[in-house]
């Protein structure tokens, strides 16, 4: 079909369009009210469901957040309760271990104090007082000689005697003090022992005080959780987020270990199940067998951790009697040990297969043969390394159960919070889209009015002429507004 059939003025598309527009203008003016109604209806039709969806999403997000909060607090309550119980167990162990010897300690202290008191009393014994005749001597000494030779000689004799007695008494006095000093010297070991015993008692009491402080802290946390406070919720969410990231990191590291493990046993497994069998287009049976072994090892590790009560993923295992649990523990450990042994053997076989393949390739090469690897201990290091790695990795993988439990526990909180955020974001987007659609309908109505501005101006002019003018500037309303008001 000729594309210029619509042109009224041949060869001039712009002028033709203008003429068509002028012709169409009266019809557009006539259709103004229905078009405005149509645009308004479209705006409502598209905007209302969007707004309703947004409101529903916000409500659902609120409900979900509340539910997340309840779950989080319940989980936190349980965890805090367990920690408090654990603290009490520790205190109980401390009391049993340290304070059961307290009577003996007290007896020892009393004995030592009694002994020190006795010695102290011995120290308190004073030396004998000077004899009674000292006063008589003093009186004689005060007698005036008057220059008499007899008296002088008598006094000199008395003086000599007194000097001798004095020296003797002084010596006795010194000896008595020496004895007391010896007793005081004997105090020292008892004082030291006393000090040591008291320090020991103090240490034990301090340890008990620390535990009591820890219990106080846990109790405060527990009270906050029980009180459903925002602070407790915030703390629990942060804790879950940290746990989630740490657990993810550890699981990624463990996945790396599992990959190495897989590489170690995939090739030798082909010796057991065949290298030519495929389960899918790109998946060998030997690779699946290697994967299955790794998964079984991880499962055994999981059971081992469960039976050791390190993780709590399976309530049924925890509900088992101690005897049954111990049996299960030994079964899981034996299987893990066996699998580790098998892996070590497979790692050795891998090394042998690679060496065999290498020898074959060398014999097939037409170029000069490469120097054969020596048989020294250096050449055996990789082999030994592979064997050790094959044995250790299953046990290392067993510990993945711990971060796995943390991951599962925290994923609920993190996933719930992420879902709430996503729902809120979607609600905002829907609300924005609804507003955009409604405002878009208004804009389109205004654009329509701009298109038919000439007839509208004529209409206003005619209306102004007919109607009296009480108000010099009556408000101009668009057709869309008139429709909305109606």
């Amino acid at each position, binding site marked *: 079909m000729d594309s210029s059939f619509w042109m009224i003025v041949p060869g001039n598309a712009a002028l033709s369009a203008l003429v068509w527009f002028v012709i169409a203008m009266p019809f557009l003016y006539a259709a103004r009210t229905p078009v405005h109604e149509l645009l308004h209806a479209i705006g409502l039709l598209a905007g209302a469901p969007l707004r309703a969806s947004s409101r529903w999403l916000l409500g659902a997000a609120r409900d979900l957040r509340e539910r997340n909060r309840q779950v989080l607090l319940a989980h936190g309550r349980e965890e805090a309760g367990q920690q408090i119980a654990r603290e009490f167990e520790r205190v109980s162990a401390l009391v049993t271990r340290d304070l059961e010897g307290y009577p003996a300690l007290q007896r020892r202290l009393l004995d030592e104090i009694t002994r020190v008191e006795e010695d102290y009393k011995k120290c308190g014994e004073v030396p004998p007082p000077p004899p009674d005749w000292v006063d008589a001597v003093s009186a004689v000494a005060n007698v005036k000689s008057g220059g008499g030779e007899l008296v002088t000689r008598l006094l000199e004799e008395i003086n000599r005697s007194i000097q001798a007695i004095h020296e003797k008494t002084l010596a006795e006095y010194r000896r008595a003090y020496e004895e007391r000093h010896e007793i005081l010297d004997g105090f020292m070991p008892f004082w030291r022992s006393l000090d040591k015993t008291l320090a020991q008692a103090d240490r034990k009491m301090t340890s008990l005080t620390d535990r009591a402080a820890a219990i106080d802290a846990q109790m405060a946390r527990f009270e906050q959780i029980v009180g459903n406070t925002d602070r407790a919720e915030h703390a629990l969410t942060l804790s879950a987020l940290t746990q989630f990231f740490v657990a993810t990191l550890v699981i990624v590291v463990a996945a790396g270990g599992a990959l190495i493990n897989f590489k170690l046993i995939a090739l030798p497994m082909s010796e057991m199940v065949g*290298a*030519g069998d495929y389960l899918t287009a790109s998946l060998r049976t030997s690779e699946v067998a290697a994967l299955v072994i790794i998964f079984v090892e991880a499962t055994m590790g999981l059971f081992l951790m469960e039976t050791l009560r390190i993780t709590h993923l399976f309530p049924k295992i925890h509900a088992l009697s101690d005897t049954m649990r111990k049996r299960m523990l030994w079964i899981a450990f034996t299987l893990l040990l066996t699998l580790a042994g098998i892996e070590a053997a497979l790692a050795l076989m891998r090394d042998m297969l690679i060496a*065999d393949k290498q020898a074959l390739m060398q014999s097939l090469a037409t170029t000069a043969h490469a120097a054969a690897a020596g048989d020294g201990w250096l050449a055996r290091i990789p082999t030994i390394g592979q064997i050790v790695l094959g044995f250790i990795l299953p046990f290392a993988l067993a510990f993945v159960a711990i971060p796995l439990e943390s991951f599962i526990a925290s994923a609920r909180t993190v996933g719930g919070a992420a879902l709430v955020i996503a729902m809120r974001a979607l609600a905002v987007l829907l609300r924005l889209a609804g507003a955009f659609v409604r405002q878009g309908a208004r804009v389109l109505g205004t654009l329509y009015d701009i298109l038919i501005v000439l007839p509208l101006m004529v209409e206003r002019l005619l209306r102004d002429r007919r109607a009296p003018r009480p108000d010099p500037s009556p408000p101009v309303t668009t057709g869309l507004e008139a429709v909305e008001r109606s």
Partner: protein
Amino acid sequence: MKRRHFGLGLAALAGAGCSDPRSHSQAVYMLVDTSGTYAVEVSKAQRIVNYLLGTLQPGDSLAVARVKSRSFSEKDIIAKATFDNRPSQANAQKRVFREQMEAFTRGAQGSAYTDITGGLIQGSMFLTETGAGHKTILIFSDMQEELDKVTQRDFPIDLKDIRVVAVNVVKLGTDNVDPRRYLGRLEAWQKRVEAAGAREWRVINDIEHLDGVLKG
């Protein structure tokens, strides 16, 4: 990429819950031309066989047959083996195979005529019997077929789902005079092979680069 395939494969396995019934093994039938002037090239065939032995995996099959005046016979197969699924056993089989090939190259004798078509038919039958998923016929020859008057080979042959690779197609003295003879010879073989239903026709003259021999 490989890991993604691995994961997808595992998911597919979990979904299907059964093994893949398709065969993923390869089977290679190599024709070695010992006729006329081409007999001197036999030592190169040993290198190609060594490459194949190093590349083929446990579960794959390999057969080497000579091209003589009439090649449609099991007696012309020099060595054949379907390698064990266990890598250690497969390596042992490869060593034996290599020794058989060495013995052949030491005592290879030329023939008066060159029956490539007969060898192709024999190879096609062998490959079909292996049930391998990927089948390849290697033709180590100058691709100049010469038949005696009695031998009949001018009939359609069946090479369905088989890759045909011509290796070390040397130029004859007459090709040097008129290269169109060489190109025409290769073109004629390509048409014939493709008409027989072959999956691919390929020519590899540089035996230092045999990477494309097994994978299309």
